[in-house]
């Protein structure tokens, strides 16, 4: 039963990936912004346009172009970047590890912080420290990521002069230099992602706290600490795991801003450069990677909540 539910979710996930690839392709290929037009720019004549379209395979019907694009994508051939003519796979290969390292370190730091702080706030609701945590996290999630980043630059780079405001990685740094260079973007992302996770952990626990069996425990006089750690936490694990996966998905949009402001040489920076120069093949490839990661993380969140909740495992 459980296996079937998980397989069903996997099926939905693959279907979603397929739909996402269609959307990405349709938006970047069918809409009036024509690649041939952009390449030729002002020097376009009807003849050169037609010739270039034929060369790019753009005179084919869209579904044929879509399937050849999808086939190339699946076999790792991401095409040629318009700017400079380098192969997109090599461009991405040099950048994607930077982004993955950053995302991994941010998750390692932010997940424990968020769970501890969220639990702690839920254990002492209404106290001054809980209010500070609630207000702080609410403020953090209401402001744009670049606001946090700007304040970080102001404090750590300009006022305290501890860390560099922008970083230039040469690839030859040792670990401590690398860590120092990555500190600012990492702190920013940790703050942004943790705020959301703390709020949802706290809300998840408080939500369980309002269920009848907890009321029963309160009424029979069980101490609050024991209620949370022994009764509430186990039922909140599902939602919390769910929140963690969702927030790592939220990292996807966070890295776009943070890599740009700190000129961190990651995949998102590559994609923004591609959007600015309207390098559509590059944008397509990067967008597909980000969207696939997003869909997979949401899928994991879904499966985690099925596994942790017996009621979802055995639907009536």
């Amino acid at each position, binding site marked *: 039963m459980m296996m079937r539910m998980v397989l069903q979710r996997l099926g939905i996930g693959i279907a*979603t990936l397929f*739909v*996402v690839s269609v*959307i*990405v392709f349709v*938006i*970047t290929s069918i*809409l*009036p*912004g024509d690649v041939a037009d952009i390449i030729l720019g002002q020097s376009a004549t009807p003849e050169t346009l037609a010739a270039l379209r034929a060369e790019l395979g753009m005179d084919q019907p869209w579904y044929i172009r879509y399937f050849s694009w999808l086939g190339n994508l699946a076999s790792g051939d991401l095409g040629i970047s318009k700017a400079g003519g380098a192969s997109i796979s090599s461009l991405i290969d040099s950048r994607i590890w930077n982004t993955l390292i950053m995302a991994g370190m941010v998750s390692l730091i932010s997940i424990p912080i968020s769970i501890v702080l969220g639990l702690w706030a839920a254990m002492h*609701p*209404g106290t001054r420290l809980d209010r500070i945590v609630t207000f702080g996290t*609410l*403020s953090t*999630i*209401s*402001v*744009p*990521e*670049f*606001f946090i980043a*700007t*304040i970080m*630059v*102001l404090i750590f*780079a*300009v*006022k305290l002069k501890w860390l560099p*405001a922008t970083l230039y990685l040469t690839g030859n740094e040792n670990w401590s230099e690398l860590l120092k260079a990555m500190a600012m973007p990492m702190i920013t992302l940790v703050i942004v992602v943790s705020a959301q996770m703390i709020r949802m952990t706290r809300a998840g626990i*408080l939500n369980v*706290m*309002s*269920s009848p069996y*907890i*009321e029963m425990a*309160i009424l029979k006089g069980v101490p*609050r600490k024991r209620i949370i750690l022994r009764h509430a936490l186990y039922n909140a694990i599902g939602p919390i795991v769910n929140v963690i996966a969702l927030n790592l*998905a939220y990292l*996807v*949009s966070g890295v*776009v*801003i943070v890599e*740009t*402001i700190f000129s961190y040489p990651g995949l998102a920076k590559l*994609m*923004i450069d*591609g*959007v*600015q120069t*309207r*390098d*559509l093949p590059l*944008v*397509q490839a990067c*967008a597909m990677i*980000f*969207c696939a990661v*997003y*869909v997979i993380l*949401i899928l994991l969140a879904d499966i985690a909540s099925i596994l942790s909740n017996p009621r979802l495992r055995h639907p009536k």
Partner: protein
Amino acid sequence: MSEVIKNEDEILAKLDAFAELPDAPPKRKLKLSWVGKLASLVVIFWLVIVAIGPSISPHHEMDMDGDDSFMVAHDNEYGSFYLGTDHLGRDTLSRVLYGARNTIGIALLATLLAYSMGITLGILAAVKGGWIDMIISRINDAILALPSIMLGLIVIAALGSSVPILIGLAGVIYATSVFRIARALAQDIMVQDFVEAAHARGERIWWIIKSEVLPNAIMPLATDFGLRLVFVVLFISSLSFLGLGIQPPASDWGSMVRENLAGLSGGIDLDGNTVTSYAAIWPALAIASFTIAINLIVDDISAKSGGSLAKKMI
């Protein structure tokens, strides 16, 4: 004449009697804590600036009247620069005041568009059901499966960026969540007894939507409006910050932060010394004050609703 008035009195008396019944619904009053009141003042302040900003600002948003770029507050023959100048020597205060119209104004338009699309399609899907519901819901799910910033980036890569594209883009992206809420609400309302009674009376579907569904769905949707507006402001200002939103030289808070980042370590004071220029901080604070204030109001309203034993005990 006197009889009519007497009748009205009787009706009023009856209504009063109903109001005192024990199961009469409590009168809804919007009570805000002092935080909520303060936050409402901030929001009202910015909405007033949206309306009158350009007419009270000391300079035009594009006038390069300042003595130098990233200067601290100073005066010259063109007037006063209370918050200093930006990277092109323009008055920061004027650009923040003008920018309110672009940042908040465009976000408001996009949110209104999202609401009109989301509510129309949501109610349509709930009322019609069947294959119409199926198609709209599947398209909606597909758009929701993409991170909004990614969708924004690929559309802008394909179409370029202009104000109508931004409004349409944010409108479509955020219509998806409005659609889900409106559809769920309308589905709940459509199975209520009073709607079935209206069906039985032989009312037309439009009458039912207008008189039964909309009035019952409008309150929950209205509280959601604030949150949605915050998301749209964050979305559009993030795109502007990336240089892909509202295009220069128009002033807009997101792009102002980006343009003036270099000033954080490269400002100039009146004696020519290098100091910190806060030209990037002011627009950042403007966005933050607006979005935090709206979230505080929404939080305040939703904290007032509900309240169980456990909530009081813990």
